[in-house]
């Protein structure tokens, strides 16, 4: 019983730390997005709060926290409150299986713990896919419960888009799963150790470059980011499904969107870019003799890969205009889906001919 309590306490501590890091990252991202967008468009971004505007996220958070919480007339009060919570929970729950660092164990009070992996379940990828698909509920219910036609249209668009592109995400991942032979994110990452050509983007026998491209595009679409931000197209639908939301409930949707971005970036880093592995075998710190600090380098590599993807999101947003809705659907079903299926076919043949 004591062991169980200890394990639960440790897991709770891990969850707290991960949540804290994610919330911090989201705060940084809200500022970074506006800054990067501004710089790319020859603007400055927020400059008022604090030196160079670095306290802007705090100001935003305070504002949203103290803002009046309006429930529109005729809205379904229960579902209106439920929708942001659903969206946020679905976005945050996926981090439980993401390996943030190497698969080392530490011993504390006579029990083995894995400090960087909250839980290594053998269906990790499926778990993440399952809970990202729940995110659509928050969107669609929020759109419906607001009793507003813009919200409803945004919610319906979002549901169609998320379902369509979730399929492509799943199929793009299958190629990696074929090569790795496991659904556990930890095992998949471990299989990519060594030089960077062992990463599944470049991996022999068949590089998953196509799957990577399909995954990135579909992930952008699934998180409702520009250029696929049709559910919240400002110029057409005011703000999409959260038109009627304000205050903390709006903040929940906002945090959920950013958490989803971080999650898909983590998955992309773990599946295609080798996760915590450095592009060279082992770690430089371990070679220099600091074996017990090798995890620092691993975690830094993971963070670097995740932040590269997050930067890619901003970069795309600064560059590309929004697609039309039928273009989006046609692109998803007629271009991305065949490519993903073809990739699975070729990868399966290659994996069969050249077993690793």
């Amino acid at each position: 019983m004591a062991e169980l309590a200890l394990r639960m306490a440790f897991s709770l501590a891990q969850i707290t730390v991960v949540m804290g890091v994610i919330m911090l990252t989201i705060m940084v991202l809200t500022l970074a997005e506006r800054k990067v967008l501004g710089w790319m468009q020859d603007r400055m971004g927020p400059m008022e709060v604090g030196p160079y505007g670095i306290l802007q996220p705090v100001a935003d958070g305070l504002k949203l926290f103290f803002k009046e919480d309006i429930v529109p007339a005729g809205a379904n009060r229960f579902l209106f409150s439920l929708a942001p919570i659903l969206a946020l929970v679905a976005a945050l729950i996926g981090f439980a299986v993401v390996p943030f660092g190497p698969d080392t164990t530490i011993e504390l009070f006579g029990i083995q713990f894995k400090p960087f992996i909250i839980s290594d379940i053998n269906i990790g990828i499926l778990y993440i896919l399952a809970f990202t698909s729940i995110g659509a509920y928050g969107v669609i219910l929020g759109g419906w419960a607001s009793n507003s036609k813009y919200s409803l249209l945004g919610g319906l668009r979002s549901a169609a888009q998320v379902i369509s592109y979730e399929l492509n995400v799943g199929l793009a991942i299958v190629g990696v799963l074929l090569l790795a032979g496991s659904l556990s994110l930890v095992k998949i990452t471990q299989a990519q150790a060594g030089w960077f050509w062992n990463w599944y983007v470049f991996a022999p026998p068949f590089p998953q470059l196509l799957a990577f491209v399909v995954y990135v595009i579909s992930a952008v679409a699934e998180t409702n980011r520009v250029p696929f931000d049709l559910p919240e197209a400002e110029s057409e639908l005011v703000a999409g499904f959260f038109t009627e939301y304000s205050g903390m409930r709006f903040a929940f949707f906002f945090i959920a969107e950013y958490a989803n971005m971080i999650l898909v970036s983590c998955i992309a880093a773990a599946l295609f870019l080798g996760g915590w592995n450095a592009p060279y075998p082992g770690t430089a710190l371990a070679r220099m003799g600091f074996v017990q600090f090798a995890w620092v380098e691993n975690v830094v590599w993971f963070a670097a890969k995740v932040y590269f993807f997050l930067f890619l999101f901003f970069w795309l947003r600064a560059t590309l205009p929004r697609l039309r809705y039928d273009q989006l659907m046609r692109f998803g079903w007629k271009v991305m889906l065949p490519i993903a299926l073809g990739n699975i076919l070729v990868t399966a043949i290659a994996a069969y001919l050249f077993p690793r």
Partner: protein
Amino acid sequence: MKFKAWLKTITFYEILVGMAATMRHLLRYKPITLQYPHEKRTLPDSYRGMLALLRYDDGTEKCVGCDLCEAACPSRVIRVVSSEVPGEPTKRYASEYYMDMTRCLFCGMCVEACPVDALGMTREYEWAVYDKRNLLLNKQQLLAIGDRSYPVREKRLEFQHPNVAFFNVAFKNLPAKGT
């Protein structure tokens, strides 16, 4: 040609060009933003800002209450109530003068129309208010604006050159010869 277009499509060539452009702007970061409340642009010479009523150098109002500005205004901003100067039946003045600046479009026609140059356009533009009614300006407010924007005042018409005093109204707006 067709093959080339196809190749461009599948390699996302156009998108990559666009992304290179945005990246170039990120690397050579030269903002064109003006941090407005802290930095202000230098206004052009012919800037048309807030309207103001002017005075002569002895402190008397220039306005003679002729209503021409009211007639010239396209959006009916101005309302003039003119009355006689007490004791001098030939002279008039504006006993009340209102400008509803919520409607003003700063065209400057009232300034052009004024025969005695009693109206002027200042360079003030920070006139955002919380209450719209604060933009209905009366004569005292307009004169105050004129006082702070035109520190150098004109002499009274009678004390200027006799020829100018003879013609007395807006000599610069006379039609050109031969028309």
